[in-house]
Each structure stands twice: as structure tokens, then as C-alpha cells.
């Protein structure tokens, strides 16, 4: 057999194997992450009108319960927290949301200590690929080195963006498992974070420095400009953490918190520092140092709703 034929046969068979594997894995992943697909579809493809949008990382995703906020504020809110997200992802999420939805009145942006650190731009960029119909998503992926044109031609190339975690989840999905464990639920973007309570073992982490990157700062500025242009009231928040645990695990917390405070002050943006609330001393309300559990999210959402009402009332 001629060498060129051998090359062609090898490439074609690999493409077939990869495409079939991709089809199976994406099916498994859709089953396993059904809630995530539903949520990202709502955020990036649907036109539903919400009054209030919560943008942030997993600390927002699992820490703010829209049902509680809605009942107190009499608003229709949605939780757009992105797992592992940083300010770049927050900006993309907000811009992509605004691309398909009517404008919200309020955006609550929760900024964490690691939000400015853009060493890893996307925590899980492959989760955005199914939503490239949204032009903001497509443009953002391309701008950050993730080629969407190639994916359109050869869909199995999405697999190159899956890490082992995603792949093992896909296999779990094929065997009938789902990500949300029994007893937990998703509601308007919020994902309940179990009833687990904090254990001391979580505290043993060596402190590290989070960088304040220029791109991180620029992303925040873009969010502020975007909200100003669209006449959306922007509010900053710092989510609860157990006894300042995340700040103790960081070598430069003051530098980052000062930057957020100064930016808020310069742009006259209300800023809720919720790391010194009473609930922050109660380990029964935390699943781990940085994340509230189900009860914690419920309690915090009440406090946050009242804080939002204060802003609405102009207090």
C-alpha cells in the first residue's frame, strides 16, 4: 500500500473514531451536566427578562439564592455565577447575557481575591463552545486563542478542550450519573451546595499571592463602562468566607481589596463587604472556607437582599 494511502486511511479512521467518541462523550456530558447546559442556554441564548443579575464565581453560583432575593426585593433575579471564573469571564458572561436579554436594572458583581489573576483565562473554556451562536461568546473565545472556526468544521476538536475531569464526567453521564447530588437542586442559576459543614482540614493551605493583571483590571473597567452605557445600576460585593479564611490563605489580600474599594469609590458604585457578617463565624453555614452551604446561602441571600433594597432606596 502506498504511503499516501496509509496516511489518508489513518487520518480518516482517526477522525471517525474521534467523532464517534465525541458524540458519545457529549451525550454523556449533556446528561451529567444537564443543569449546566440549561443554565448556560438561559444565560447566552434565551431572551428572558430579569431585573437583577448576579455575576461572579462559584461563590456567587452557590451562595446567592434568587428565590430568597426575589421574595424580599420583589424583583426577578438570575444567578450568573461562573465556576472558577475571573473578571474576564465575568465580563464575557455579562456581555453575552446582554447580547440576548433585555437589560436588567441591577447587576451585583461579586469580586474575589483571585478575580484579577488571569493566568488561566478560562476555568473551563470548552463549556462555552455549545453557545458560539452568541456572537459575544464566539468573539471572546477567538480573541483568547480558542479557535471556533475549526470546531465548526470538525466538532470533535471540542474534545481537545476537555480536561480529564470533564471526560470522566461525560463517562459518568453515560453510566446514568448526574452532577447534582441527591438533595441538591438548581433554581434560576443558583446551585445549592449540599448540607456539608466546614471541617478544620480545609484550613491547611499554604498562602499564595494572587496577581492583579492589567487584563483583569481592564475587564473590570469594561464591566463598569458597559453598565454605565446601558444605564444598569452596578453593585460590587465581596462574598462571605469563614473567619476571613480566604484572606488568610492569600499573601496580598489588602492590595486586592483596596483596589476593589478604590474602584468602587471612584465610580460611585455601592460595595458590600460581606466578609465580616456574623454568619462568617458559623462553620455550620459553610461547605468549605470560601463557599456557603445550602443553609448559608439561604441566610446570606436574606442579608444581600436587604443590602440591595438599601441601594434601591438610595440609603
Amino acid at each position, binding site marked *: 500500500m502506498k504511503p499516501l494511502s*496509509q496516511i489518508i*486511511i*489513518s487520518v480518516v479512521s482517526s477522525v471517525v473514531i474521534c467523532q464517534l467518541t465525541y458524540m458519545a462523550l457529549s451525550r454523556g456530558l449533556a446528561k451529567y451536566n444537564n443543569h449546566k447546559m440549561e443554565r448556560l442556554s438561559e444565560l447566552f441564548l434565551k431572551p428572558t427578562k430579569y431585573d437583577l443579575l448576579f455575576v461572579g464565581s462559584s461563590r456567587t453560583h452557590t451562595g446567592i439564592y434568587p428565590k430568597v432575593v426575589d421574595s424580599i426585593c420583589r424583583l426577578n433575579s438570575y444567578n450568573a455565577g461562573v465556576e472558577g471564573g475571573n473578571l474576564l469571564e465575568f465580563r464575557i458572561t455579562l456581555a453575552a447575557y446582554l447580547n440576548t436579554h433585555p437589560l436588567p436594572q441591577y447587576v451585583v458583581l461579586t469580586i474575589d481575591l483571585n478575580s484579577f489573576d488571569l493566568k488561566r483565562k478560562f476555568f473551563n473554556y470548552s463549556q462555552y463552545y455549545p453557545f458560539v451562536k452568541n456572537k459575544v461568546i464566539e468573539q471572546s473565545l477567538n480573541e483568547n486563542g480558542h479557535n471556533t472556526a475549526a470546531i465548526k468544521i470538525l466538532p470533535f476538536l471540542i474534545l481537545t478542550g476537555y*480536561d*480529564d475531569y470533564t471526560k470522566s464526567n461525560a463517562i459518568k453521564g453515560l453510566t446514568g450519573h448526574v452532577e447534582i447530588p441527591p438533595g441538591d437542586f438548581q433554581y434560576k442559576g443558583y446551585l445549592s451546595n449540599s448540607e456539608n459543614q466546614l471541617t478544620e482540614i480545609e484550613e491547611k493551605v499554604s498562602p499564595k499571592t494572587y496577581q492583579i493583571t492589567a487584563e483583569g483590571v481592564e475587564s473590570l473597567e469594561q464591566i463598569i463602562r458597559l453598565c454605565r452605557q446601558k444605564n444598569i445600576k452596578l453593585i460590587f460585593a465581596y462574598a462571605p468566607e469563614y473567619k476571613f479564611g480566604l484572606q488568610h490563605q492569600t499573601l496580598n489580600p489588602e492590595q486586592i481589596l483596596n483596589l476593589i474599594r478604590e474602584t468602587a469609590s471612584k465610580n460611585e458604585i455601592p460595595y458590600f463587604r460581606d466578609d465580616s457578617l456574623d454568619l462568617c463565624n458559623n462553620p455550620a453555614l459553610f461547605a468549605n472556607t470560601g463557599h456557603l452551604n445550602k443553609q448559608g446561602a439561604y441566610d446570606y441571600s436574606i442579608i444581600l437582599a436587604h443590602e440591595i433594597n438599601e441601594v434601591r432606596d438610595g440609603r
Partner: protein
Amino acid sequence: MLFNSFQFLLFFPIVTIIYFLLPHQFRWIHLLLASCIFYMYFIPVYIFILFFTIAIDYIAGIMIENAESKKKKLFLVMSIIANVGMLAIFKYYNFFTENFNALLHAVHIQTFSIPLLNIILPIGLSFHTFQAMSYTIEVYRGNQKAERHLGIYALYVMFYPQLVAGPIERPQNLIHQFREKHAFDSHQLLDGLRLMLWGFFKKLVIADRLSQYVDIVYSRPNDFHYLQLVIATLFFGIQIYCDFSGYSDIAIGAAKTMGFHLMTNFNRPYFSRNIQEFWKRWHISLSTWFRDYLYISLGGNRVGIKRIYVNVAIVFLISGFWHGANWTYIMWGTFHAVFIIAYMLFHRYSKLKIRKNKALDILSMVFTFFLVTFAWIFFRANSIHDAFLIVHNIFTLYDPHPFQWVVVDMKNLSEFGLTSIMIGCIMTVIMFIMEKILPPRLQSLDDKPVINILFCTMFLSLIILLGIFTKQSFIYFQF
């Protein structure tokens, strides 16, 4: 440009196709331009450093050839000083300055310190500098005619497949190939692509997967249990092999698709039965460089036995220093010098007469692997302090926390850490089996089309399905 980048996926076929479409007399221009583009993807302005060394060595080569015997040496020394000077400025200046300043500080002179340079090391500087030096030395020795064609000489230094991480070619092997007309040969294309595939498999599926674990453990060694330190060190041994030999395979394969033959850089080094054999199989282009140009220049094996040991120590210390301006690399080189000298002493004075058998071979391979892996601790550690801490923690069975906690802590691997590690281990076993069965360049697959197709299909699929595409570098780029 990185081999494992989307840009290279476009660059490689375009360059290869245009190469064969062009008439022979224009091909060197095409390759030179392509090499410039390849290099300029990193820091464009650094291309001028390359041009500078090319100009110096091009002129030096001609002057050495034309000069009388006494002046030959002078021109060679001048060329070597220019090349080493580039390394000294970009790679070693800050190291020496920091150490000198620390020394001043230690003797309580705190009012004076030499300023550091705020520069980034040009990628692959040590590689192309050594390749350029190889040229002038060979011209001096009369083994190579000085190249009159500046473009061809520039291409010898800049040929993109081996520009940033070798193999460090000798002029006798490479320069004449640029003058030869290479007709398109589908057999060579297949051979080259297959070797590239094998390189990508080692790099993307094994090295980059294992590095996730290694990076986390080595970034905070004192947080980890001794078993995790052992695992991370073993993984690093495999990672660096797959990373670097993977790069070499891709380079050799890419060159081969256009009909160029680069030297073999790795010959299954972890199957070596002693440390001396290891160095005949690991980074062959560098170890032979040191042998040919340093060890032999120091007297080689023609001197007394004590002097041989001193020469070996010098070569390995410099080899360590070549890898990086850090005490960790010097320690790494020192350990290898000690291992080699110990082996030579054992070989010379031991009265033991052991009959060779398979079990002993395996035992010797395992022992050699552990010696090499031990030295890798110093190569990989972020500082000399970390390296000794790791050694201390391993040998004192350090146990800071319950073992399972660390897997939970591995943020990037989190709960899938074990899956990732398992895949990495299985792929490593497959890789070693393949390396044991097949020759270094996989030539034995040439006349077995079915096996060849199965091999290519399997590994291309594995790369796409299991490759880690987020890692953005090769370890040896930093050298």
C-alpha cells in the same frame, strides 16, 4: 512558535508544501523566512541576536579557514568569546550578579550592589549558540569547509525544526543537506509524520498530563506527604523524558518530511543499565557536543586516570550550568559527575565478576533509573532549598497531613486527580512498551502497512482524545 500550537498546525503543512513546490534554488530562502517567522513568534526583536551570532560566526568561519595556523586559533577564540558572551549576558549575568551581591551582603558591604538586568532569556539561546560554536570549531579542526553562502549558513543555525531545542547539529551533517535537491518522497513524508505523531503523543498525552501533578507538588513541597514527593519525582523523570524526546521526535520528523535527516537525540535512555550508558542515550546531541568539544579538548582519555575524573567532573558541572543559571542545575550536574566517577571507579577497581543475565539487567536498569530520578529532584526544584527539603522529606518519610488530603487540595486536578494520574500511568506503560519493541525512529513499521495504519490511527486518536492542549511550553525551551 510552539509545536503544540494551533499556529504550527497551519505553519507546518504550508511550509512543507511550498518547499516542494518551489524550484530548488529558492528553497533555502523559503526555509530561512519560515524559520524567521517561527522564531519571531516568541519575541520578534530577539531575531537580531540570532542575526548577530550568525554574522560573527559566518565571518569567523571564513577567517579561520583563510588564516595561518597561529591566527586560526585567535579567530576561533574570538568567535567563542562572542558566542559565550551572548550567553553570559542573557543567561548568566543576573546569576553571577545576584551571587556576587549576596556575597557582598554576607561580608556586610551593603552600600554597594551591582544592578541586575531586566531581560528575558531568548528562547533556545543555548542550543543555537552551541550549534554555531560547533561550526567554528569544526572549521578550525579542518573537518568542515567554511560556508561562503551566508543564507545557507544562516539556515544551518536557524533551521526551524531544531532551532529552539535541538538536536544540536554538527555542520558536517546538516549544511550539505541544504544544497542537496530533495524530491518529494511519500515514504519520507510518512516516516516524518509518524515520528511527529509519536512525539506529540509523548508530549501531549504523557508529559503535559503528568506535569499537572508535578507542578503542584513541586510548587509547595513542604505541604506534601513523602509518598507524593516520590510520585511527583518519578513523574517528573517521565515528564522530562516525554517532553524533551517528544520535542526531538517532532523536530526530526518535521525535518524528515522535507527530506532532511537530523541526528537521533534519544535512544531509550531509561533502558540504560548504567549511568555511563544513560549519557550515551540521553540528549545525545548535547552529550556528544561536550565529548567532542570539551572533554576531548581537555585531554579526553589520553591523560592520567585522576585527570580523567577531573575532566568528567568539569564536563558535568558545565553541562549542569548550560541547562540554567541556577544552583539547582549545578547540583544536578554535580550529582551526575559523582555517579559517573563512582561508576568508573567501580568498573576499574571492582574484582566482582558477575555473569550477565536478564534479571541483573532489569535490576541495573531500575537502579540507574532511580539514580537519574534522584538527580532530577535538583533539576526540577524551584530552588536549592526546595531540593534539599524534598530530599529530606522523602528520606525522613515526612507526613504533614493525611495522605488523601493532598489529592483534594490539588485545585487543578481536584477530584479527577486520580483519573488523570491513572491515564498518565497507563499511557506511560504503553509508551515504554512501544519504545522497547520499536527502534528510536520507528523504522521497523515501514514495510508493514497494516500495523503502520493501526499505529498511526491509534496514536492520532489518543492525542486528540487524551491530549492536554492547555500547556503552553516545552521544558527545554528555557535553556
